[in-house]
């Protein structure tokens, strides 16, 4: 019996390099007074298959679907393929990349980047003469 060659995936995987073939997750981005929020659709991806990295001002998200390739039986209709998701975003400066909050629920990644104090709107006191 021949065994598949073991590849140390964790070690060989450089996250800043995109996989050979990948899908771009559909993403919404909105801004509030407090933060920038990204919502990225990555159906089939479980939390342990997700990687989010920030290097300087480049945010990279990558997700590998947990769902096994559905190859049971004969294909009658095929509208989507299962494969890795990958996308890189250039972030504006002045975001607090140390305190990014990430959560993944039902295949949607939510990333919340708090604004640095300098970017938050503030009220300027006007003194009466």
């Amino acid at each position, binding site marked *: 019996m021949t065994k598949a060659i073991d590849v140390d995936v964790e070690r060989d995987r450089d996250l800043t390099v*995109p*996989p*050979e*073939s*990948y*899908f*771009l*997750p*559909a*993403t*919404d*981005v*909105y*801004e*509030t*007074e407090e933060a*920038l*929020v990204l*919502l990225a*659709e*990555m*159906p*089939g*991806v*479980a939390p342990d298959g997700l990687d989010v990295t920030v290097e300087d001002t480049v945010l990279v998200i990558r997700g590998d*679907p*947990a*769902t096994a390739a*559905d190859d*049971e*039986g*004969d*294909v*009658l*209709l*095929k*509208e*989507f393929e299962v494969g890795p998701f*990958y996308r890189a975003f250039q972030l504006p400066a002045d975001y607090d990349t140390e305190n990014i909050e990430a959560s993944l629920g*039902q*295949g*949607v990644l*939510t990333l919340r980047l708090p604004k640095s104090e300098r970017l938050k709107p503030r009220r300027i006191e006007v003194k009466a003469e």
Partner: protein
Amino acid sequence: MAIRAWVPSAEPFAQLQREMNRLFDSVFGKHFASGRLRSAYVYPATNVRETADAYIVTCEVPGLAMDDLEVYVARDQLTLSGVREDGIPQEGATLHRRERDSGRFSRAINLPGPVQGDATEAALTHGVLTVRIPKAEEAKPKRVQVEVQQ
């Protein structure tokens, strides 16, 4: 028998783009065209497979919980409907990028043969819905053991 997706005539450009993508992929290979945005022109994007005793339907429904989804089987038709919420606050949010769709949806999928609708099982994992619909007994392939007389 293959199931054909119904293409709404109001979206000829989406279909044209799909056709172009497919042509591009077939000429240059998938790697060249990597990094495609999943733009389903019908929602949800659905795969259907057939085994000896069931039809297996998988749909990409990221962001939906089981409570947001209605799954019905009537005769040999599967119907999926629900509402997609975008999760973006109504007030105090400035949109920079909008690629996800939201709103009410409904889709019907005709299965090629009779099924046992009341034995349908559905599971939702990480935004992928899997519906398993057993075939009706009369539609399953029969295997009869034949005694061979010496």
